[in-house]
């Protein structure tokens, strides 16, 4: 069921064209990496502020608030390019264990956001009332750095798994 949908997806004209193009595919990959740089630095900036390791003269609420929309845009860019890379070889990615681990880590990122929404990200002004960044904020920041670094490494390792024979490419 899922695989038949993936085969349908990868054989849609724009995605099969992307698969066979010598130059568009690497351009999308380079854009993916550029978006990762931008998005990753905003994640690091937010987490370093939560840990109290950088920008301590500014408030936590200010950093989180000002980077909220830029981070969303950065993630959307990286995810769109990532989806394009996936869609051209959807079936092969589906069997790739590093791709599966990457998706699992992305789901953990979503759970992380839900878990810490109330205590950290939703009300950062509360964090600024304490003289030192509270432990829960530091835990959230540490986990975030750990998860995103894992996602980055899994992304690179996807390319090291040999594709299976018998993919349904048209």
């Amino acid at each position, binding site marked *: 069921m899922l695989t038949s949908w993936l085969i349908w997806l990868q054989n849609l004209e724009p995605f099969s064209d992307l698969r066979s193009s010598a130059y568009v595919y690497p351009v999308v990959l380079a854009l993916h990496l550029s978006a990762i740089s931008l998005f990753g*630095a905003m994640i690091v900036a937010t987490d370093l502020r939560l840990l109290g390791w950088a920008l301590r003269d500014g408030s936590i609420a200010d950093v989180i608030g000002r980077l909220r929309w830029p981070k969303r845009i950065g993630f959307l860019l990286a995810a769109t390019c990532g989806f394009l890379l996936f869609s051209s070889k959807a079936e092969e990615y589906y069997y790739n264990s590093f791709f599966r681990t990457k998706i699992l880590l992305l789901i953990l990122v979503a759970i992380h956001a839900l878990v810490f929404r109330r205590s950290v990200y939703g009300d950062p002004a509360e964090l600024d009332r304490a003289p030192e960044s509270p432990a829960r904020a530091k835990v959230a920041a540490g986990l975030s750095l750990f998860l995103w670094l894992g996602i980055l490494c899994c992304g690179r390792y996807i390319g090291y798994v040999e594709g299976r024979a018998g993919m349904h490419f048209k």
Partner: protein
Amino acid sequence: MLIENPLSTSPGAFPVLECLHIAGFALSIGITALVDFRLLGFGLRTQTPAQIARAFEWWALGGLIVAVFSGLLIFSTDPDMYYLNWSFLIKMACLILAIAFNYTIHRRALSGGLSPAAGRLVACISLVLWVSVIFGGVFIAVVRPGLA
């Protein structure tokens, strides 16, 4: 060969180096982009561009050092292939330009030595140079080998 490069004989080393390379350049280029977007009027607007640059100065430099040293090790596994590759040479030219630009004109824009319009131009040039380095790196594996 007189001495075998241990990186070429252990298959696990190369992807680890690549992960370090990506993490390093993502950190340094991303932080520079945060400063550049601030020069353009976006992002951390409570701080001045100079304050953002100073706050993350050591993180950006640390990322650059990790990226350069992992890159040198990656280069060492197949030097002939790299220096006879157009994309690699263009990447190195952009990298040297980007670093030189960062510590000269870019730094002057941060210290307030330029008009806001010139600051925006400097930010755009910086972004284009650093993104060119990323494109140059990806295309090493795409372009035809050799300089002919």
